[in-house]
């Protein structure tokens, strides 16, 4: 990817939607942004609007924490940002480097999830049949049918990152043999293995004790220090305090400060 400004001046590939905002010569578009997104769940006749025009803008190199109570829609917002889910039909856009991601066909969404963002879940979500190393490599194996070269590169990078995360002695273990903190580290390595621009973490410490949680946050901080953009969701103000900027999710909307 070139710098965001040139990205905006017409070199986009045809498969991405154009944004409705006019190009700006002075301010670069944010790395990742949600624009007026709505997300409503339906239970038969009853509609529950969880997000009601939520907007958030995450600049390159930023570490943003989204703070909100349980059930406020934090995960929903993260799923939208990560391309796992789409806003209600025609009600809001997700932009990555100035391009709408949720308008693309399924294929480009797969690519977005695979290359552009890395997702970390509260419950780690590792594949139990695969070893630590295989789990960490997974995004490198996914993108393409004949990606042997990419798979080898992903393997090298996974080994490197697992080493940094202090897991080099665990490569052949199954997730079930690991502690919660170790599993979450594997999940973070998996999220980073394809070299995404943004890390999306949905309550990454929510299932861990304070000390272990702190070490996870240290790991994220180390990656952030190397230039990674991070968006993190939490209901815990002390966790949120590690971020540069804290926003709140209230009544389906994002409020600054």
């Amino acid at each position, binding site marked *: 990817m070139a710098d965001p400004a040139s990205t905006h001046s017409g070199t986009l590939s045809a498969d991405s939607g154009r944004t409705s905002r006019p190009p700006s010569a002075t301010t670069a578009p944010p790395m990742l942004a949600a624009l007026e997104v709505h997300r409503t769940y339906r239970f038969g006749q009853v509609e529950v609007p969880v997000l009601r025009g939520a907007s958030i803008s995450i600049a390159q190199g930023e570490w943003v924490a989204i703070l909100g109570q349980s059930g406020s829609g934090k995960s929903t917002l993260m799923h939208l940002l990560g391309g796992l889910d789409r806003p209600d039909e025609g009600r809001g856009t997700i932009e990555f480097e100035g391009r709408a991601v949720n308008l693309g066909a399924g294929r480009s969404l797969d690519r977005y999830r*695979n290359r552009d963002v890395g997702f970390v879940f509260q419950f780690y979500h590792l594949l139990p049949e695969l070893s630590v190393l295989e789990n960490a490599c*997974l995004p490198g*194996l996914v993108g393409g049918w004949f990606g042997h070269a990419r798979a080898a590169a992903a393997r090298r990078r996974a080994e490197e990152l697992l080493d940094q995360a202090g897991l080099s002695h665990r490569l052949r273990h199954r997730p079930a043999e690991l502690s919660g903190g170790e599993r979450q580290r594997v999940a973070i390595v998996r999220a980073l293995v394809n070299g995404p621009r943004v890390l999306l973490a949905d309550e990454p410490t929510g299932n861990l004790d304070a000390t272990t949680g702190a070490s996870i946050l240290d790991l994220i901080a180390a990656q952030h220090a190397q230039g990674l953009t991070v968006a993190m969701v939490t209901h815990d103000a002390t966790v949120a305090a590690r971020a540069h900027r804290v926003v709140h999710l209230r009544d389906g909307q994002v409020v600054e400060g």
Partner: protein
Amino acid sequence: MYAALLSNRYLTSRVIPMIAVGAVALCVALVIIVVSVMSGFLDMLKASGRTLIGDVIVSSGVGGIPHYDEWLADLRALPEVEEATPVIDTLGLLRMPYPSGPSKEIAPVQVWAIEPASFARVTAFGEKVWWRPPTDDAARDAMLPEDPRLRMDGSILRDGLTLTQASTGRPGIVLGMHVSIGNARQSNGSYLPRFGWFMPGEEVTLTVVPVSESGKISEPRDATFPIVNEVFSGVYDVDKSRIFIPLAQAQQLLRLDAAPLYDTTAEPDGEGNLPLLGTTPARVTKVLIRAKPGVDALAARDAVEASWDAFVARAARRSDRLGRPPERVSILTWEQQLRDLIGPVEKEREMMRILFSIIHIVCAGLILSIFWSIVIEKTRDIGILRSVGASRLGILWIFLRYGLAIGVVGSLAGVGIAWIVVDNINLIHEAIGRDAPRAAWITTCALSVLSLVMALHSLAGRGQLLPGLLWTIASVTLGVITLALLGHRGTLIWDPSVYYFSRIPSQVDWFNAAITVGGGIVFSVIGAAIPAAKAADVDPVEALRYG
């Protein structure tokens, strides 16, 4: 890439897919075994059926084929034809030499009058004449000690092959193996004389009815022949009614020989003789043809047909009205001729094939249900894969690959099992025919007791139900097998002294095996496809909430 990794991992890390592999293997093996044995029987039937008829059979009506020598010369000159031989077939009654006493039994027979030398070149008559001395020590050792063949010299075979009793110079008769009651079939497929009646050397009287060209039936005529040998074709219907006599004798008996024809409407001359119109040529009712090696029977048939048309056309140009060949004769290949014999068995085999193919669908259903439960169990994993960028097609491919692997491994294992069983089917058949060896039931009994001990141990020990249940099932199964082995009294399914073959065909029908394997794989993939599509449609967020 990841699809291979995951489908292999799913395949090897659980037991249920192994059960699916086993089920596919057993289904495929069953189909291959049944169809292979049926195909073997069919081939055997075809082979025996064609032993005494050559490749192409030309049959005329009662009038017969005049100037057949001329046509035989035409036929022998054809590039497709190896040899041709004339035959007269008719029905007759055979007065048997038994019982002792003045009143004898009469057997209805199908008479084939042949020229033995050329007949043996067209058909396998030469190899099928039964009574002959053993050719080597191995053959001698295989015979029962009472077998009359052990005390024979070559003269009986020569008499059989020439249809002549050499010691007297008389024309002889060869009977099908079961025309007389004298031959008792043994369990090794050989024959011993029954009630002391050994046919060669005895005399029989054959009665036949001549029929004129116009279909008028004359007085029956008879002739007495010494039995010179017997013949075993392998088709019971043939062996119980076919007899062979020399062509010349049959032509005389049936008035099909060359004869002067007088004008019965004219006045006799001074010496009381009617005016001579000419000579009616000798006739035969059938011509059997052997095709040159490598020539297809249908191609030979077409050549024979063309030759017949030319022969008829040539005869029509001659003024001689007496030797006109019939316009129409039936010209059939051996397979067409044997339609009645082969047809029912072929249909049976197709029935079997269809019925057993349903097993494939059962396999597909089994795989479908196994995969369905795997997909449900793996919903969260599918969500994870989608969240790191796996496409729907990628997920589909994981499960299709998985089904493909089960189909391929299962089908190939099935071929292996089928091959082992079919290859040893005669041994298995013989083993079923004997009582179970003591070692077998003692072993299963001991294993059953052992399993029972293990069952009690695991139930008493950690109070775990599953291992206890499995050991109990093993114990009961082994116990039932022990009882079955104890109760088993040797019964041959196909007792060769009753059935007409002494060995079960043991050739795998590889063509059919290939089709069955293909079916096994295709149905496994179909069974996997439905759950695979369901897996591909899983919404990632929903799937992750699920876990």
